[in-house]
């Protein structure tokens, strides 16, 4: 069934079969990815000023509907892409995590704006320093807040990413979430493997 002609030595052929998807799955990939790309239903998680830009993106001038986002899904169970628009305080961390857990696969997430991506200017006791410490993120949109064009570009990047997905790659849907005890690393360990980052040269990943 594969594109490789039979007759070579068997283990090599099997390895090639496993590595490269054959014609049928490739076309099916294209169909499925086209479907997924063109009907992304966003779950808006708007906490701050980025949400205003997000609303502008959804309104008629920028019109997210052009990208198949006709319907804002305010129920996580009918959503495909979580868009975190705004800064996330620690009090909301378990909430966004619960929403992410409630979304069915396949699902993606966009971190919109500086605060959602890195904590932004809020380098304080109450703020999560990047939602990627809570949920996996596919696309980061920079800006404070990003203009609707920025968000639209981020969505188009996500669509490009989805078009490149393959049904045969089962690792795509595997999640390694940070649990209360799961992937927890002590502060010293984090500093050991990371560079200084953030607004100040004195700031480390852990502190």
């Amino acid at each position, binding site marked *: 069934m594969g594109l490789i002609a039979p007759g070579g030595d068997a283990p090599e052929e099997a390895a090639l079969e496993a590595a490269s998807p054959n014609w049928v799955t490739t076309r099916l990939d294209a169909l499925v990815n086209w479907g997924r790309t063109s009907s992304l239903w966003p779950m808006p998680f708007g906490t701050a000023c980025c949400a205003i830009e997000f609303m502008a993106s959804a309104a008629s001038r920028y019109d997210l509907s052009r990208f198949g986002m006709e319907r804002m899904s305010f129920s996580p169970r009918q959503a495909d892409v979580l868009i975190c628009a705004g800064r996330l305080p620690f*009090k909301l*961390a*378990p*909430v966004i995590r619960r929403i992410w857990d409630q979304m069915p696969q396949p699902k993606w997430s966009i971190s919109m704006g500086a605060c959602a991506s890195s904590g932004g200017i809020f380098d304080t*006791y109450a703020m999560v320093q990047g939602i990627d*410490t809570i949920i996996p993120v596919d696309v980061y949109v920079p800006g404070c807040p990003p203009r609707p064009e920025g968000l639209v570009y981020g969505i188009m990047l996500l669509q490009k990413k989805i078009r490149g997905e393959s049904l045969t790659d089962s690792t795509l849907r595997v999640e390694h979430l940070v649990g209360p005890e799961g992937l927890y690393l*002590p*502060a010293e360990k*984090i500093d050991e493997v990371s560079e200084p980052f953030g607004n100040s040269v004195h700031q480390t990943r852990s502190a």
Partner: protein
Amino acid sequence: MTATAPAGTAADTVASLRAAFGAAVLRHATPCGDDVVWVENARAHEILAWLKDTPGQDFDYLTDVTAVDYRDPELPLEVVYQLRSLARKVDLRVKIPLDKAQPLAVASVFDLWKGADWLEREVFDLFGVSFTGHPDLRRILMWDTYVEGYPLRKDFPLRGHFSRAEQTRQALAANPEAHYSLEELSIAEAFGDLPEAMRERLLHGERGELR
């Protein structure tokens, strides 16, 4: 103060306060045109009640309750009450200095102004001032299980006492649903306070028995 309003400026109020309470009124100043009066903690509740209930004073509206922690550790922490008389259109700021070496406690004014409920909870949450006599004194902005301290104190580090990793771990261990239960919203409790007609409607439905 316009000529048509009832007599008495905030400065007059402070003069009456001095006459009534003497040494319990510590200081009076007028920075930027706002009258501020410092009063003794022991008699503060009495003074605030006097300001609210004395005819001619009528400070019937509690605009805000907050606190100030100064960087100088010698200076006391001040609890601030911003009062307004809606009828007289007069504002007065009352400050209670608290010695930081002693436990920070003032008497709650919830019995005078019901609006003090959440304002005092906020001051308790962020400064750690306990309000004796408050009916429901618990954190309001930070979560119930927050153990790092009181964030608006000057000795509180900007990024908190714990590492980011530990803060994230603790945040994820919290149960978000615990904050949004029906019990929290106390719908069942409020039911008794509804008008009779509305209770009827809720119980039986507008078009008769629904149960």
